[in-house]
């Protein structure tokens, strides 16, 4: 019984296939995966942050500001590639600032990213003047919107992006030096420093990666809607944290894996889908989601305590 998150996911699948015969249709599965992709991309960066014993609350706001910048670039006629690259760099830069505040400024990750979260939300509202920025009509708009709405071999592009992000994150954590340092730092920061590793640099990497992935999620959301909403991404940090924790990653750092986050994100995506299919009123959906998250995490806790 090693993989509790997977069991929770399978139980949910079984329950759904009994309750609703539309669940196991190709169309619905694709919908679940596509809806999961945004959270999955953000949760991957969050996995890095939580693995080093930190947190990144700013991801939702990074998504919003990056989406807004991308939308206005496209609507002013910039090239899609340039827009995507600059938007990703912006996300990376914001993440780097988070990293500097946390490593050099010695701020608690929670406080530092709470600050940037609030600040960037404000910046987004000022920048957009509280109104959506539409990309429709611009020259590059059609190509740009493909990032969110396009298909390749009958599968939506965001799903490919999600899978690619997962593979890269897996490779980083399992095969690269920086991945090893992430686990070491999360388990014992002092011993990691004593082993000659510049822990500040590891933190900079992690928060930059989280910022970059939040920007990527911002691009997908904006492209899908052909519009950047000033309130986009609000509360997304919580869904991402839930996915990471559901995946068995320890909030204390050092323990966890990207495979867990894959499953955690799927559980949340599936839950949203299931509650819609079952026509649960939206107010009750949050109640149900909260209950499932608590039960899943409690099961995981018990298993770890028993060990």
């Amino acid at each position, binding site marked *: 019984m090693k993989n509790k998150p997977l069991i929770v996911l399978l139980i949910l699948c079984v329950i759904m296939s009994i309750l609703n015969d539309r669940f196991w249709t190709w169309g619905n599965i694709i919908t679940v995966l596509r809806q999961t992709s945004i959270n999955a991309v953000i949760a991957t960066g969050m996995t890095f942050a939580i693995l080093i014993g930190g947190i990144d609350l700013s991801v939702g706001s990074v998504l919003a500001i990056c989406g807004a910048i991308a939308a206005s670039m496209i609507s002013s006629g910039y090239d899609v590639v340039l827009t995507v690259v600059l938007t990703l760099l912006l996300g990376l830069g914001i993440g780097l600032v988070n990293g500097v505040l946390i490593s050099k400024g010695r701020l608690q990750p929670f406080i530092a990213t709470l600050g940037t979260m609030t600040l960037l939300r404000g910046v987004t509202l000022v920048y957009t003047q509280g109104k959506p920025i539409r990309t429709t009509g611009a020259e590059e708009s059609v190509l740009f919107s493909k990032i969110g709405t396009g298909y390749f071999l009958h599968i939506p592009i965001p799903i490919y992006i999600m899978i690619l992000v997962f593979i890269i994150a897996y490779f980083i954590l399992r095969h690269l030096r920086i991945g090893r340092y992430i686990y070491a730092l999360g388990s014992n920061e002092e011993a990691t420093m*004593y082993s000659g590793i510049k822990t500040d640099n590891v933190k900079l990497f992690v928060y930059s990666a989280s910022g970059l992935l939040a920007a990527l999620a911002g691009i997908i959301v904006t492209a899908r809607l052909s519009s950047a909403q000033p309130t986009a991404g609000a509360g997304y940090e919580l869904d991402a944290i839930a996915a990471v924790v559901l995946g068995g990653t320890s909030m204390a750092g050092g323990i966890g894996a990207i495979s867990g986050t894959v499953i955690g994100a799927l559980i949340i995506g599936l839950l949203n889908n299931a509650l819609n299919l079952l026509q649960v009123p939206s107010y009750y959906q949050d109640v149900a989601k909260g209950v499932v998250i608590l039960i899943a995490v409690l099961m995981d806790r018990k298993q770890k305590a028993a060990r």
Partner: protein
Amino acid sequence: MSETIIAMKNIAKEFSGVRVLKNVSFNIYDGKVMALVGENGAGKSTLMKILTGVYTKTSGQIFAYGKEVNFSNPKDSQRSGIAFIHQELNLIRHLSIGENIFLGREPVSKLGNINWKQLYNESKQWLDKLGLKEDPRELVGNLSVGKQQLVEIAKALSLNAKVIIMDEPTGALTVAETEKLFSVIRELKANGHSIVYISHRLKEIFEICDDVTVLRDGELICEKSIDELDEDKIIEMMVGRKLDEQYPRIPCEPGEVVLDVRDLTNKFVKDVSFTLRQGEILGIAGLMGAGRTELARTLYGVYRKDRGEIILENRKLRLRHPTDALKQGIAYVSEDRKGNGIVLGLNVRENITLSALRSYSGRIGKISRSKEEQSVQNYIQSMTIKTSGSGQLLKYLSGGNQQKVSIAKNLDAKPKVLILDEPTRGVDVGAKKEIYELINQFKKQGMSIIMISSEIPEILGMSDRIMVMHEGRIMGTLDRAEATQEKIMTLAVGKEVS
């Protein structure tokens, strides 16, 4: 002789089968200051923790004011008028002096709210008795260590303490603060209090104490009036341990000077100069707080130096981080294994290669698992690390095997100078011997070794030269031929060797 108010008789204590105290008797006399001395690990703290109810004794009896007592927790001993002032003071920095004095027993009014007026008035009275002019509303964190100590004493007095135990009370005090403390102690004595004074500083003991109890290896060596003793006699009694032949020392032909340290000075060490030759083991002895670990960590780049030079193979080093030290060829096996020596949540393989991970990875940083595995298997075999495999998490290994992993990690960085800080702390006898043999192997391979240890026989048994530190300074360096336990201890307590 005045009346005995506390008598501990034939106290023994075992920790999971290991005897740390054997038939120790200890007396506290009315209105007197009793010194309690002994090396690190002689059993002083254990004895005092038994007296104050922190530990329960395995056998023996304790009499307080003529009646047998059994303290099962510190509250019990407090009620019998015994207070323990720990070396690391037990005050809460963010609370005021008064709040600290009355913590947990604040005076309350009828409604149950704290009567602040009474609390601060009474605090003021206690402070006045000790000649402390501070406002009791002042936060403890704003006081000097010397004054904090007096607050602890005020707290003890307010608890009606008859007996006050002070553990290394002058460790962090200035000369003036020490004088102040001594006058307070004399005052307390005059008012009929008894003091237990634990200290490494023999001079102070001769200044303030009436009687001396010496412990060694958990045994009572003697209890005498101070008039019958001098410093040399106390030192002799503290060490006098039998040297058995368990140290596989090998002769060395020291080569070139590898490490040359000149006038190294920072917050922890003062004007430290020494050299280390190739293939040599330099032992560093000293008592707790002598600055040995801090010296090692300065050489390893954890602490910055303010002044002085560290020269490795004729190159001046600038060390700002352990990564710099490792790159230059200085490695450090920490005394605080779980704190910063190893990562308990990583496995054997990941721990061993952590410091030198670069040598297992290519340009983009991809780790070659096969190369890693091969090297780790080598270490596991050559160092006989007992583990179910390289994938075993470190937290499931015994202390000795964890220590071997910690050493292997440092070896993997291919150091020229290996600093071992308490390399056998917390490992069992068998593993100890294996570690000694490993150290000798490194020596044979031409590595230069600095070994810090609190066990004088270990230092004597392994080192080619012995450097003794006291309060951040080097008190003297002894050649192996001339070194004795007595000489080391004499230097360690800050006296010159004649």
